[in-house]
């Protein structure tokens, strides 16, 4: 990769003049995202807490999506994934995504099942 850096983010919407200004630009973006997360976490708007989407509060969906956005920019711009070959990028990114998605799916389904056993089964736990 040498010294060349790809300097545009947001799919070319913003292009920086140098690598250093790009770093500061990404910092500002990440800070804004974190500030939004914290503000939502403190205020907890009713319509976001009350609305459910695929079994989870809309607010939690927003948190998780914003987290993935932050993870993307940390990996792509701070860890220079943007400048690596696509082979390396795909090997590093898709392997955990595939494995972790499977783990999440299987563990959360199982946990929900156990929750229902506690709830509906003849198990006394609240005494």
């Amino acid at each position, binding site marked *: 990769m040498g010294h060349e850096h790809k300097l545009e983010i947001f799919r070319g919407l913003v292009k920086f003049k140098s690598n250093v200004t790009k770093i500061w630009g990404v910092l500002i973006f990440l800070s804004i995202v974190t500030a939004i997360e914290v503000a939502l976490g403190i205020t907890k708007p009713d319509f976001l807490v009350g609305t459910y989407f695929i079994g989870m509060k809309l607010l939690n969906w927003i948190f998780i999506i914003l*987290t993935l956005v932050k993870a993307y920019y*940390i990996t792509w711009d701070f*860890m220079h994934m943007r400048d690596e070959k696509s082979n390396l990028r795909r090997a590093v990114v898709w392997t*955990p995504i595939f494995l972790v998605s499977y783990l999440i799916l299987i563990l959360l389904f199982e946990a929900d099942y156990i929750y229902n056993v506690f709830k509906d089964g003849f198990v006394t736990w609240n*005494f």
Partner: protein
Amino acid sequence: MDTAVTTETEGSVWGGGNRPLGASYGKLMMWFFIVSDALTFSGFLCAYGFSRFKFIETWPIADEVFTHVPFFHGNFPMYYVAFMTFVLIMSSVTMVLAVDAGHRMMKNKVIIYLFLTIIGGAIFVGSQAWEWATFIRGDYGAVETRGGRILQFVNADTGERAALAEFAATIPDERAEHERKNGIWFREEGSLTTYTVNEVVEGFRSNPNILIRTETINENGEKTLLDRKQSLERIKDAKLVVEGANLIRNEYGSRLFADFFFFITGFHGFHVFSGVVFNIIIFFNVILGTYERRGHYEMVEKVGLYWHFVDLVWVFVFTFFYLV
């Protein structure tokens, strides 16, 4: 970085000249480590999700647990963790600036930025230690029932949480902590709580404005508050006084909550600590001119990858422990 040894087989695919990933050995190995470590952390966080979904109706609400900011009194959920997150992101920025300065062989800039990164890391580890200490100390105290449920107390007049000290009765008794020096030398017990169960129960009975809050989360996403009659019935189950948190029980609710908190933030904190140590080693190497003589600053880049990864993990820990 072109650090791989160039031989005459360069360009010949079967001679090993093919470089499908286009990265040096060292960087590639760091990526290997990061992927495996990411899977380890994912395992922990998924296990946390498992326990949380299992006890979805009774899990502690993070906003009510992490409410402290150093040097300030009052209820400030999230502010301090947000500050910690910002410190870590900021130290990531100084690290990537150090890497960038390394590419341009500007030794003095690398030194300054690495120094700032180390300071940021130290602030973060210190903050986490403070967070742990506050968590372990606890603030209101609670009682545990026979079934291991946590009962917390609320002042009916104000609606605020009531600390045990506000209402517990004082019953003089002879119970002293059993220490090693008394009796059989290898037997000792953990420190006694400030109040005994009897003192809490008596104090609760004689204070009509204290209510019990159970672990169960109602449809408004808040912990269920019992009325006085139900509370008097429920207090009969009290078996233990719980103050603060340890690996066995905690005053915040589900036992697993504290276990996962200690385990995941502890494992992450250990990573940050190791990262600071690596940064310090690299920092001195830069000062000594090791990389200047080597002709490239790839070591800064490799340690930088690790440092950013630690930041990346924190972003997820922050979301799943404090926000969701």
